[in-house]
């Protein structure tokens, strides 16, 4: 059965959580659902039962014996394996305690937070400054040791964990704030700063980070920049391509590229920093960033609304842009399926709207400088929308506690999905008017076999299409892929709005980018990282990257 679907069996180096054990195939990470030592391998797959993965899978070389199943990801034979000289070199550079070989700590660094991807690295390095990163990379490049740059390891596409035995370089120890200019609001900091720490640091200074996302307590700014993370405030402050004014990155050969400008305007030559924003650590390791941060405005208002049909949601969005334009800071949506999940799986969450069940829920946030003016404006807008029938019900947060409880519903959807069981996640950019049609089509395609949930950043045309299934199942997957990608491509959308491609979608890039474009990307990769040691097997299709 696998052989009939080789295209989808890509990610051999993947581990599924306990709940998924015993299934025949997972999503894009299909085979290795038995890496946990206490689990018995699925009996239905002969080849797997003979694999020595029960001990933690510490022999990545053996993956190649999967033959056709594993053709999509094979350990690049040109990469070296670690030896004791390497270890003593790293210990010399970083000191004993920043060279981690402890199995428990490696375990955490090897698995992504969804427990969907698992690598088998035996070495975690914790550099404390740019020079150390530079020395590590220079050495790894000369030795052809593959590396995976890691921050908070909160990625959703398997980009931040090793696939095989890549050396993990975690920049978490580089967590200093270097400078903050209170006049311009420009923050310069090291890559390992945790987003939430930056948010609270700036809060004390009277500023805010231009990005905010659910993983803020763990994710690091270097990773955010490398992923070009979007998040909840995108509709107001825009992309990191606009907010990152400069950065410092270390190339594969150890060269330090100083582009740490703090200028808003700088038209001198090619703006190369953009290459490192969103390239997922495949071109270099971001070590420092300078970010333009907007001043913190005192008045924040949040409304939680119900709409009966998707057309009303769209109309409300265009009305909101027109009438709340200068204060609109978030426009999020979730459908009733997502709401049910949150209410059933998260403790202490209640539906703010008491009456009946609604088809769609919207969260609108405004941020401005004048409390009573903003509130009046928002109220007037909402009351008008209610009279015209766009909104069927709604509540307005009266204090921060209520505001947080509204956000909790929207931000809690991914968590509720995780608790509900196996989930297939798609992060798509689509024209707003088409966005929900895909959810409805998927619902029709899958029928009773899975729960199709739609939510996301409506204001940015970013749909999170999630399929919650009782188990990971090839027949369900076959219903979803490549249908979702083809559908997205047909409507000129993007198969990755804000999560990146990582390992999960590296081979699907052509659904959103032309051949010529991808070819040029591969040339750039080749130029900056000729040995391909930086975050291998990810972002770009394996077929385009030949290693010599």
């Amino acid at each position: 059965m696998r052989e009939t679907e080789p295209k989808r069996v890509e990610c051999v180096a993947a581990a599924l959580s306990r709940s998924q054990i015993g299934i025949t195939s997972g999503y894009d990470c299909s085979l290795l659902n038995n890496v946990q030592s206490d689990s018995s391998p699925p009996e239905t797959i002969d080849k797997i039962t003979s694999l020595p993965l029960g001990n933690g899978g510490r022999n990545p070389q053996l993956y190649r014996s999967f033959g056709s199943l594993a053709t999509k990801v094979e350990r690049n034979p040109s990469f070296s394996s670690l030896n004791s000289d390497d270890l003593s070199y790293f210990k010399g550079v970083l000191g004993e305690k920043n060279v981690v070989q402890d199995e428990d700590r490696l375990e955490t660094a090897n698995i992504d937070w969804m427990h969907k991807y698992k690598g088998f690295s035996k070495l975690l390095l914790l550099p404390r400054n740019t020079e150390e990163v530079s020395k590590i990379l220079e050495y790894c490049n000369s030795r052809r040791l593959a590396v995976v740059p890691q921050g908070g390891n909160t990625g959703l596409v398997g980009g931040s964990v090793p696939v095989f035995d890549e050396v993990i370089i975690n920049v978490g120890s580089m967590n200093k704030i270097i400078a903050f200019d209170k006049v311009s609001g420009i923050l310069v900091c090291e890559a390992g700063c945790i987003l939430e720490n930056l948010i609270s640091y700036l809060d004390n200074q009277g500023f805010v980070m231009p990005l905010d996302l659910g993983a803020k307590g763990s994710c690091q700014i270097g990773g955010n920049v490398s992923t070009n993370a979007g998040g909840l405030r995108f509709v107001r402050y825009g992309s990191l391509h606009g907010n990152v004014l400069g950065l410092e990155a270390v190339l594969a050969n150890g060269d330090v590229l100083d582009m740490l400008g703090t200028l808003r305007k700088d038209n001198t030559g090619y703006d190369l920093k953009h290459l490192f924003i969103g390239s997922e650590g495949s071109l270099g390791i971001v070590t420092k960033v300078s970010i333009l941060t907007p001043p913190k405005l005192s008045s924040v208002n949040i409304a939680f609304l119900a709409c009966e049909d998707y057309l009303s949601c769209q109309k409300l969005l265009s009305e909101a842009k027109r009438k709340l334009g200068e204060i609109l800071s978030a426009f999020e949506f979730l459908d009733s399926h997502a709401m049910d999940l949150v209410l059933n799986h998260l403790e202490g969450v209640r539906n703010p709207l008491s009456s009946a069940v609604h088809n769609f829920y919207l969260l609108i946030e405004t941020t401005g400088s004048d409390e009573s003016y903003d509130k009046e404006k928002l109220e007037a807008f909402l009351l008008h929308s209610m009279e015209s029938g766009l909104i069927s019900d709604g509540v307005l947060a009266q204090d921060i506690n209520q505001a947080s409880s509204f956000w909790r519903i929207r931000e809690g959807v991914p968590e509720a999905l995780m608790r509900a069981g196996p989930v297939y996640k798609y992060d798509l950019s689509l024209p707003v008017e088409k966005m929900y049609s895909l959810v409805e089509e998927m619902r029709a395609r899958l029928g009773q076999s899975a729960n199709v949930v739609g939510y996301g950043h409506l204001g940015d045309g970013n749909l999170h299409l999630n399929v919650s299934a009782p188990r990971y199942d090839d027949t369900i997957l076959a219903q979803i892929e490549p249908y979702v990608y083809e559908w997205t491509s047909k409507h000129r959308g993007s198969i990755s709005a804000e999560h990146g491609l990582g390992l999960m979608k590296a081979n699907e890039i052509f659904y959103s980018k032309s051949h010529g474009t991808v070819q040029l990307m591969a040339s750039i990769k080749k130029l900056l990282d000729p040995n391909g040691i930086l975050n291998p097997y990810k972002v770009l299709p394996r077929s385009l990257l030949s290693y010599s």
Partner: protein
Amino acid sequence: MSVPPLTILSISEGSSLILLLPSQSAGHIDPGESTAKKTPTMKILVAIKRVVDYAVKIRVKSDKSGVETLNVKMSMNPFCEIALEEALRIKQSGLASEVVAVSMGPSQCVDTLRTGLAMGADRGIHVESTASLYPLTVAKLLKALVDVEKPGVIILGKQAIDDDCNQTGQMVAGLLGWPQGTFASKEARLSRLKKLRIVNFRQISWLALEVYALDVGVLLDTEKQVATVEREVDDGLETLCLDLPAVITTDLRLNQPRYATLPNIMKAKSKVIKKYTPQELNVEVKSDIEIVEVTEPPKRKAGVIVSSVDELIDKLRNEAHVI
């Protein structure tokens, strides 16, 4: 005094309040009077305070004179929200005719009152004062308003989260000479019945005990003019029976306040907020208290990693002085 048989007239779902009325056979009640009282006339006065939002990180002013409130999000005191919610539930269950919300302080208190009106209060009263108002002054102002409004019950939050005084309810009860039921809480569970201490329960205790089976905390008998309040004390729950009019202050577990819905926000726009000054109420705003200094609590010291059990014991003994 003989106890008339009582019947439960109405139990509103979600309300922690039950109305007890004497049954028709009760001889000492005049039938005419009884019919007249079927439409509720009782007014409930609820005090609501505008405070620095519960979720805001408090900053002390640099001159240590107080807490920074400039450009800080202000909201209704959470205990007051609960007080208002309880009043609204009493009204919804048909026992009160009107809920009047009162706030005192600077002009922005009107925003807090608007929130109260959007939750469902019928009217607002704003006693405007730019000077700091301390509990005794607030209690005096409330007493003055009681003379104007003549409520049957005053409900307040047990304390405000900004100064944590926990005095106003008690003081206003003292000034009015009304009984008080403080820290009303709805933690009554059937299993806890045995732990209850019944204090001053008077003649209706037998019925009230039966009512516990319905998991109800607060009882109000408008006919007999008594309110029964259940409160948390150190060793369990205590039940008080108060003559009306009375003062009730609310604790956190009494109820879960409602949100302001758009239709109610719309309705609130046409509701009246009446303004008074302390002078108009013949209350002199003054304080017998002087705040000497406001400081932040000491910062928590960073921990240390000890290398051996001996070192730990040494530190516990000689530095922490705990063993």
